[in-house]
């Protein structure tokens, strides 16, 4: 693949990618742009509803529980752990991509397995959080949380947006884990070794980092602001 960038190249005359990346990677980028708009639309409609409402629940009151800690008031702690897990799994994914560049099959295997474990841990945390919120009476169409100013909830916008957006993100994590498992199977079978490059790891890596990127925004919009 002729990927060197030189001044003499005629970028748009064909024969090589004007973006200096393969077709597959470019299409992954384009898919991620479209996905960014989907998540952006969801988050902005959440923001619009929140600006429209005269009162809104306080996230530090809603999200204050931690597994096995009973009624101890621990705002933000559990979701910080979830954030840490997702950032960590992003690091292991980068390390898998990195090992792939050097055709290090064992390295790719090790880091991919750790990434999958991280993704599953994140999903486990989210399952616990959803179960807990469901137990205290929150669900689509049901909002048990009083507003920050003490008034009773008059709409279910808060819970509707929370479950829809974290659910859509969780769905992305789930499909990311599935993609990682498929790629791991191919790594173990030697498919990429035979192909001569580990670019498929880079492509699912892009997707995985994007899921982490979305979480950064979900974390800020739902738990911090």
């Amino acid at each position, binding site marked *: 693949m002729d990927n060197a960038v030189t001044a003499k190249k005629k970028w748009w005359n064909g024969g090589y990618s004007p*973006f*200096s990346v393969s077709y597959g990677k470019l299409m992954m980028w384009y898919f991620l742009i479209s996905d960014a708009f989907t998540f952006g639309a969801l988050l902005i409609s959440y923001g619009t509803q929140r600006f429209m409402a*005269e009162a809104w629940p306080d996230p530090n009151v809603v999200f204050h529980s931690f597994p096995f800690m009973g009624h101890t008031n621990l705002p*933000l702690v559990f979701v910080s752990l979830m954030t840490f897990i997702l*950032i960590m799994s992003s690091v292991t994914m*980068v390390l898998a991509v*990195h090992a792939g560049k050097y055709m290090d099959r064992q390295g790719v295997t090790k880091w991919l397995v750790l990434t999958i474990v991280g993704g599953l841990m994140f999903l486990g945390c989210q399952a616990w959080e959803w179960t807990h919120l469901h137990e205290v009476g929150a669900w689509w169409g049901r909002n048990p949380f009083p507003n920050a100013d003490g008034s009773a909830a008059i709409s279910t916008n808060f819970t509707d947006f929370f479950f829809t957006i974290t659910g859509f993100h969780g769905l992305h994590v789930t499909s990311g884990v599935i993609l990682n498992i498929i790629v791991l199977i191919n790594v173990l079978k030697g498919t990429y070794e035979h192909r001569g490059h580990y670019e498929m790891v880079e492509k699912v890596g892009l997707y995985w980092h994007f899921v982490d990127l979305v979480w950064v925004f979900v974390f800020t919009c739902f738990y*911090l602001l």
Partner: protein
Amino acid sequence: MAHTHSAHDKDAQVKVIWKTFWILLGITIVEVGMAFVHLYTGFPSKLWLNSLFILLTLFKAFYIVAEFMHLRHEIKNLIMTVLMPLMLFIWFIIAFLADGDSWKNMRKDLSPGTPVKKEAPVAAPAHH
């Protein structure tokens, strides 16, 4: 010779990866720390705190996209084709949040029982 050079590169790249990780973790810890400071002392005010959160979130997004997704090291054509469409978000966010705010105000002003604002009587233009 060539081999040792590439091994050196390899280690340098791993270093960058871990450095990015520590930056992301550090920013998250600062965010959570600031949230707790606000919770117990009420300082800084909600407006400043939220502005800080949004700024730090954008920093994190930058590091994830630039280093983890490797976009910083791609050629300019690709960087532009990815980032330019996202500029729409600037309009998108301002327009929709302003719309939500305007709805809130209209609801407040027009809800039943709200006293009608007395407009200052307009001086009738003299015709003669």
